[in-house]
């Protein structure tokens, strides 16, 4: 998997990085200031992801001041070696031409050197600032307890996982290592934010709101391989509406607070992400669609007491940089995600295995 690596900055000796960074800032002109409010570590096992990640770091540097540590590891490489580069991302802070800059340290770790990940992270953090660690690779055992204990926000994207059941279990294990001190941030969940907003918006109407208690069926259509996202959305319904999962050998359904049974159906089709959500009861039907990853949702509602209506709701940007920005900007803990994940955890082995 040896990939050609473009130079992502000034090549430096790993043991000299702090010194080189100091020199970099000393030699820069007075219009540039270094800023840092957090440490953002991005770990990938796809060496070819260097450019896309650097581009992503540059995008978010315009809104967050941080020290970015991009680590590209190839544990299977035949030869062992470690290299590093430093660079800076600057943007204009005001009309006076002053620039605010975030620094990026890029590492390429091949072969046995890939096992030095914890040391590379520990050695290069900006002290005292929170650590956000985005693992673009899958978690592997044995987990390095010391490393994960240091992570304040563990970012991952369950949409990219080949074995979500195992990976969620490992994420949970990390959480227990840190005594719940780490916040789990699933970008797959972050991507659902606009869906959740759109769904909530539609039910703002008081007559529509009453229908939420009458739901007997949920149907979600998602792109091939996107069942985890559909399940997380289902988990969100469960937490927000107080549904309890009935996980039986023959079938799975939710029980509403009223005792009403709610059928669930998740199907896959061509497209991207979630493409269609339908909530229905005996007398009402609500649909939310996002065809062809369009920049908007199309919603329709048929319910007693209100005229049938349709509406278009903006879906917001959802490029990788936008999603990471949304995650970093939101901060705080994610109790809703944790609740949604807990709610659908028993369904994961069955539902995801069908992918």
């Amino acid at each position: 998997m040896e990939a050609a690596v473009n130079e992502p900055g000034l090549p430096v000796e790993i043991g000299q990085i702090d010194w080189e960074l100091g020199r970099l800032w000393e030699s820069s002109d007075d219009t540039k200031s270094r800023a840092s409010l957090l440490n953002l570590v991005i770990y990938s096992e796809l060496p070819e992801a260097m450019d896309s990640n650097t581009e992503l770091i540059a995008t978010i540097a315009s809104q967050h001041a941080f020290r970015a540590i991009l680590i590209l590891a190839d544990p299977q490489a035949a030869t062992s070696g470690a290299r590093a580069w430093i660079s800076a991302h600057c943007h204009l802070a005001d009309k006076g031409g002053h620039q605010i800059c975030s620094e990026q340290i890029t590492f390429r770790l091949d072969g046995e050197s890939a096992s030095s990940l914890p040391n590379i992270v520990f050695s290069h953090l900006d002290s005292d600032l929170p650590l956000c660690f985005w693992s673009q690779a899958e978690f592997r055992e044995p987990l390095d307890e010391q490393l994960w204990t240091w992570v304040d926000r563990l970012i991952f994207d369950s949409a990219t996982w080949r074995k979500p059941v195992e990976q969620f279990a490992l994420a949970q294990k990390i959480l227990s290592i840190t005594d719940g001190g780490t916040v789990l941030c699933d970008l797959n969940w972050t991507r659902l934010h606009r869906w959740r907003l759109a769904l909530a918006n539609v039910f703002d109407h008081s007559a529509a709101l009453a229908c939420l208690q009458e739901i007997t069926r949920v149907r979600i259509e998602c792109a091939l391989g996107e069942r985890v996202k559909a399940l997380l959305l289902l988990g969100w319904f469960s937490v927000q509406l107080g549904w309890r999962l009935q996980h039986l050998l023959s079938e799975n359904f939710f029980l509403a607070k009223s005792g009403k049974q709610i059928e669930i159906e998740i199907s896959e089709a061509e497209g991207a992400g979630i493409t269609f959500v339908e909530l229905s009861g005996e007398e009402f039907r609500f649909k939310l669609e996002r065809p062809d990853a369009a920049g908007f949702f199309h919603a329709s509602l048929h319910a007693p007491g209100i005229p049938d209506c349709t509406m278009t709701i903006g879906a917001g940007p959802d490029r990788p940089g936008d999603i990471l920005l949304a995650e970093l900007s939101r901060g705080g803990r994610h109790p809703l995600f944790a609740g949604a994940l807990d709610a659908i955890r028993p369904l994961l082995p069955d539902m995801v295995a069908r992918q």
Partner: protein
Amino acid sequence: MPEPCTIVIFGATGDLTHRKLVPALYNLAADGALPPAMSVVGFARRDKSDEGFRNELEEAARKFSRQTINDGLWKSFAASISYHRSEFHDLAGYESLAARLAEMDAARGTRGNRLYYLASAPDQFEVILENLRKSGLNKAGDGGWARVIVEKPFGTDLPSARHLNDLVEGAFPEADTYRIDHYLGKETAQNIMVLRFANALFEAMWNARYIDHVQITASEPLGVEGRAGYYDKSGALRDMVQNHLLQLLCLTAMEPPTGLDADAIRDEKVKVLRSLRPLEGAEVSKHVIRGQYGAGAINGKRVAAYRDEANVDPESMTETFVALQVNVDNWRWAGVPFFVRVGKRLPKGGTEIAVHFKSVPPVLFKATGEAVDDNVLVIRIQPDEGVSLRMSAKMPGSSLRIEPVKMDFHYGTSFGKATPEAYERLLLDAMSGDATLFARRDEVEEAWKFVDSIRAAWKANPGDLAFYASGSWGPAEAEELTKRHGTTWRRL
């Protein structure tokens, strides 16, 4: 400026002379801080000429000096350096040195002022001190002075430290004895007192009411390198904790001295050492963690385990890491633990004191679900000497999001001039007769008393050595130490 004097360095061909002492003296000369009549005599066993000795020192100074060597200035500085060959045990060598120094006094007008620097291996201290006394070199001439600087380690335990102190005392009065701890010569270490006692903001809060705990860390990515022979006998506790780290603890914890003279400050430091709750017996395994590095990775490269290093006993039980909880049992610090850790083959190199303030009451922001980090004042001793203060700030935007931010002060950039090396300050102080930054006999002995009881417990229970991977932050057991207090080690 100090009075003109002659500095005699015993063990002049060693590492310390080349890496630290001569570059420090050159920098002082370059800064115009030395009297022109000052001279340096290197005393060692190897056979070499004055010229050969100067050439070696020039090479080292070019490599290790913080200032670039100016050829003209070096030439004039080097003219003041000479070499005296003698065995340390050979009294005749000291007698010939005395004659040579007398000649130099006459020629250079150094007034009989002598500063003897014991930079040799510690096992030579005794014979050097004895011969200085026998040859009368310990006595100052009329109107002059004779002082001695003793490098660490100052003993290996309390009895040996007492023995060494007695020997020194037999040759030089306490007022002329300078026990060096180079940490105390660093600007930031000196700044601790200014920070504490010149800033109402901090002094008012420097007590158990506002401070939750203090962490003192000295970490380095290096292994034993060329010091295995010494280190394997010493270990981290004796190499670092007994001297450097306890000295930093004293500066952090001491009461305001009655004045800035050496004894006023040292009186307060000694009171701190006497207030340390002794760690004995079972308390040691509860409050002291010792570790030894195993194989691992540093900066992407594999490194060997301590026991596989050259000149290390393959079954060595020497600790390369120590973490301990120290309690200062006095009014100011009741209930405030001082967590001290030191280690080799750790991810980052640095020495710092981190004062962790107590949390704000868990109201107001608790409802928002925002975690508010405690304030931390960090005094960085090395590298990048400076001070930083962590506080919480609202992130710009419509929602209430609280994030930690840092206010940072760097010595390197704030004052527009280079920070002198610790040895420069300490040599200058010793030449000027200011012992403030040197340890007094009672300080050294109190520190040994504290450390010896830990070692005695280790000896009784040798099985509790924990191993850690090189490149990690030490054994997991060290995490438990802080966890018990509801905190974690600071991220350097």
